[in-house]
């Protein structure tokens, strides 16, 4: 079966989600991956959106973090202060998903400004939203992001949310108990955190992708694990579930 790099990325991201996970889901790629997991191998996964919807099972992907469908299909919907206090800070989330404009090899993320002067940025981005506390309160962080040398940089312009810090040791020195970024899924490969150095290393390469492509699209000196496997291509169940989800979504949003 043919599939696009985005489909491969979504499927690979979805596979990492376990049936008993409680996921704090962001809009876009994380939302697609989480719902795909729910519609395939992880039917009992709990999806939480920061708008307050807990255990939601949307039939189509939301355009915003607070689409009505999220509430209509949730186990319960709580106020936003409660969401951030009892559910996120309370340590009840096993996996948080994040994306960014820029990330570095330690999984530090920037969604705040482009340019190194915060007060006079080249580009003012939307900002961190929930990211600073998602990054430290969730059991672990999965990052899903299209790979490019522009986004995967040696030094991010602003530390919107903490990964493993500037040296890989900052979580420990700050007393942060959670694991932090453990997995990065891109349209080219899967990276996991090296337990020794805390930097992302490539552990699985998507079918048809070369090491050179990965190197070219990474702004830092990317390392490959000793054992790199090939990511299994999306199977028919995965692809058809994803495409049906995307079709339902397109139809629903076009109808408005």
């Amino acid at each position, binding site marked *: 079966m043919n599939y696009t790099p985005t489909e491969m990325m979504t499927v690979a991201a979805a596979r990492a989600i376990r049936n008993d996970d409680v996921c704090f889901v962001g*809009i*876009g790629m994380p939302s697609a991956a989480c719902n795909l997991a729910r519609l395939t191998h992880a039917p009992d996964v709990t999806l939480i959106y*920061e*708008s*307050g*919807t807990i255990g939601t099972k949307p039939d189509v992907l*939301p*355009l*915003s*973090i*607070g*689409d*009505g*469908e*999220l*509430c*209509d299909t949730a186990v319960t*919907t709580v*106020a*936003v*202060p409660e*969401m*951030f*206090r009892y559910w*996120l*800070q309370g340590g009840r989330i096993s996996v948080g998903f994040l994306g960014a404009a820029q990330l570095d090899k330690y999984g530090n993320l920037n969604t*705040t400004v482009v340019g190194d002067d*915060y*007060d006079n*940025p080249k*580009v*003012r*981005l*939307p*900002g*961190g*939203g*929930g*990211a*600073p*506390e998602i*990054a*430290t*309160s969730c059991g672990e962080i999965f990052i899903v992001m299209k790979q490019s040398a522009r986004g995967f940089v040696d030094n991010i312009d*602003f*530390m*919107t*949310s*903490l990964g493993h*810090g500037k040296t890989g040791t*900052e*979580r420990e020195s*700050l*007393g*942060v108990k959670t694991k932090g970024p453990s997995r990065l899924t891109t349209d080219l490969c899967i990276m996991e955190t090296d337990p020794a150095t805390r930097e992302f290393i490539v552990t699985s390469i998507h079918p048809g992708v070369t090491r050179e492509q990965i190197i070219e699209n990474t702004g830092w000196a990317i390392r490959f694990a000793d054992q790199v496997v090939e990511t299994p291509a999306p199977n028919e169940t995965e692809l058809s579930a994803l495409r049906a989800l995307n079709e339902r979504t397109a139809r629903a*949003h*076009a109808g*408005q």
Partner: protein
Amino acid sequence: MTLFVSLKEAIAENVFDGDVVALEGFTHLIPYAAGHEIIRQQRKDLTLVRMTPDLIYDQLIGMGCVKKMIFSWGGNPGVGSLRRFRDAYEKSWPHKLEIEEHSHAAMANAYEAGAAGLPCAVFRGYLGAGLAEVNPNIRFIECPFTGERLASVPSIRPDVSVIHAQKANRNGDVLIEGIVGVQKEAVLAAKRAIVTVEEIVDNFDDVHPNACVLPNWTLKAVVKVPGGAHPSYAKGYYERDNAFYKAWDPIASERETFQAWMQDNVLNQGPEAFAERVAFTPAKQ
């Protein structure tokens, strides 16, 4: 009962130049009609507070009403940037815009602390985060029992908060349901609160005892504005107009197209226009 007034009166009597104003709504129930009335009444030097400033703040900023914005995520959800916000912040058009930037957790806690009458919020946050270095309103305290370093931000206490809700009863109590965001906190944290509602019903006898209800004595003005959240949505009344959110991006991308749109759709209109805007986007079920 002078609680029930026109939208024009509600804004005229409660929103003043230089005020700290929160028009809250977390995707759901965003008070667009009230925001447009603030624009029509040409308020100036406002400090706007909101976790997720979206198109209505883009519009207020682009129309020159805003001096400063306190926020945690300023974008067009699922679409991209707020063009007018960026133009103001990056290029000072129509004039300079100050910002104070927080995380969602900080803002949510700060509203909670404001509703709770506290001077500050205390939470576990901003660990290793860059905002703590650029925002002097992010400080740290020690837990007096464990010594753990906890973040603190000033509570949010707006001069006026404005929300949109599903309904009021004849007494002026207000019901919000579905994604309730930080609206209850915004109202209780504010000196004055204005609510626009989809409809006014006789009573809330059929409402769940623990539903989010704001008693009339917590409010200054209640105004019936059907469709008043468009292009946001009101659960039980109409759905989110996702197409409009997408259409806003090209409108807002140029100063001229923005101004023309504002002239036609805000300055030359009144709150009654909102009912038509939602006439063709009925609620599910």
